[in-house]
């Protein structure tokens, strides 16, 4: 439990969101409100639209019907709004997607310099402080290819945090990692949740969901089928498809 929830601020609002890939209906009438400081975990079978949902929140994918409002800004075709929202929303990918031609420090500094327009010194200080926070300051001058998967993912988290986002999206951040590296990444995410960050996390790590999530959302074939506190959702699933899903993974 993050315990910093501000129930006066619905920082993410989705109303009647629909999306199609060609004829394929991926997101069906998604309604979702997330409070500032809340940690929401999204679970569901492969292909149920989890990634697509969170990618719509920072316009990596475009929704075709319904409204998405992030921190009071309507997400539409207005590029100014999209830019403003991307500045508020950080994202961490399954495949890390670090920039291989830049050092760890360079990865964390680049967007600060050219998007936030910070001075070199300020960007460097922020970067080193964040690398310290995720526990890899001593790797600052290496290139991503020289790091382990867990270290790379922690750099990716630091890179996103360097933009001072108010919301962090995680798309299966530990799915590409060897088992012994999963914990180090989850620990960083737990610390982040405790610090009051609003987070939406797509993951198969049920332990993490039980420990950290304020709310768990179960998606199936493009719909939010059930949403509840982790204890209720895992111990007392109502929808038969959720019962079925939990039976398969637990």
């Amino acid at each position, binding site marked *: 439990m993050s315990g910093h929830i501000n129930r006066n601020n619905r920082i993410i609002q989705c109303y009647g969101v629909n999306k199609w890939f060609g004829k394929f209906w991926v997101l069906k009438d998604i309604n979702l409100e997330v409070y500032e400081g809340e940690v929401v975990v999204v679970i569901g079978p492969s292909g149920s639209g989890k990634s697509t949902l969170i990618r719509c929140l*920072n*316009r*990596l994918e475009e929704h075709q019907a319904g409204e998405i409002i992030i921190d009071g800004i309507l997400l539409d*075709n*207005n*590029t100014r709004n999209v*830019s403003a929202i*991307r*500045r508020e*929303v*950080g*994202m961490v*990918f399954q*495949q890390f*997607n*670090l*920039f*291989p*031609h830049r*050092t760890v420090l360079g990865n964390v500094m*680049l*967007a600060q310099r*050219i*998007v936030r327009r910070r001075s070199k010194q300020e960007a460097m200080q922020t970067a080193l402080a964040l690398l310290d926070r995720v526990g890899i300051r*001593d*790797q600052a*001058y*290496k*290139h991503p*290819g*020289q790091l382990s998967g867990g270290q790379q993912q922690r750099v*990716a988290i630091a*890179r*996103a945090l360097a*933009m001072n986002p108010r919301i962090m999206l995680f798309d299966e951040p530990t799915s590409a990692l060897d088992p012994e590296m999963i914990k180090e990444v989850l620990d960083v995410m737990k610390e982040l949740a405790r610090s009051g960050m609003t987070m939406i996390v797509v993951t198969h790590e049920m332990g993490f969901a039980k420990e950290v999530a304020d709310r768990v959302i179960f998606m199936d074939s493009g719909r939010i089928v059930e949403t509840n506190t982790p204890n209720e959702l895992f111990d007392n699933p109502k929808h038969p498809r959720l019962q079925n899903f939990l039976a398969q993974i637990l």
Partner: protein
Amino acid sequence: MVSEADSQRMRLAEDVPIAPALQIEGIPPAKPRPVTPFIYVYRFPWWILFLVVVGIYIVLSIAGDPEYSEYFRRLSAGVNITLQVSFGAYAGALVIGLFTGIVRSYPPGPGQGLIGGTINFIRLILYHIVTLYVELLRGMPIATLLVFGAFAFMPALRQAGVDLPFRGTSIETAIIFLALAYGAFLSEVFRAGIQSIPKGQLEAARSLGMKGYQTIKYIVIPQTFKVVIPPLGNDFIAMIKDSSLVMLLALNDVSQLAKKISGSNFDYIDVYLVVAFIYLSMTLTGSLFVKILEQRLKTKER
């Protein structure tokens, strides 16, 4: 020249302790493969040694033979033009190729709103002009292009009242049309390089709030160059050779001088031996330079 970041990295690399060999009773410990000096026989770049030795031999025989020396002296007068044309046209081709390669890599869709719509419509027109350019120029013999440029296009421009500061059959015309011809090739090289960059790189850049041009400048171009250095080097060497086509414009490059000298004394064998030596000195220096560049880029990242 070692930067601070480099020295830091080296120090980090040296700090890594070497794990002691694991020994299980009854099984003799694995011995490291003995490093014999024989390994250097396999690592040594023998072909470079061969070239250097033969090169020295040729230089000495040219210097010792008054006839060869004379040919060399007269042909060297053309090296200047050969190099000017090669470097000038290649620099132009790089700029054209990179620009058109980027345009061709991102075909625009309909834009949003009045401004976005207008910008994307202009981009659409540009996209098709660039595609037309690449497809047309790629399929044209370079000799045809040069002759057309020098004897048809430039005179036509002049007749239309354009005040050109150079003649039709000039080094400037040669550079412009060679650059256009090679630009079409390099465009495809760059496009292939750009397409080899994983989509996740662009998504990461977008999610960090970078604009399109920033993503291209800071993420796409640096990674593309690393991929395309070998084919670019290839085309640079081809350019040195193709610069000999400027003899069609009666420019006194190495090839044109060779034609003149051998045409007057019929000593084709000796003249063209020296010509081959001069071209190989330039192309081999070029390929060595490309190899070094490749090696540097490789060691910088992993």
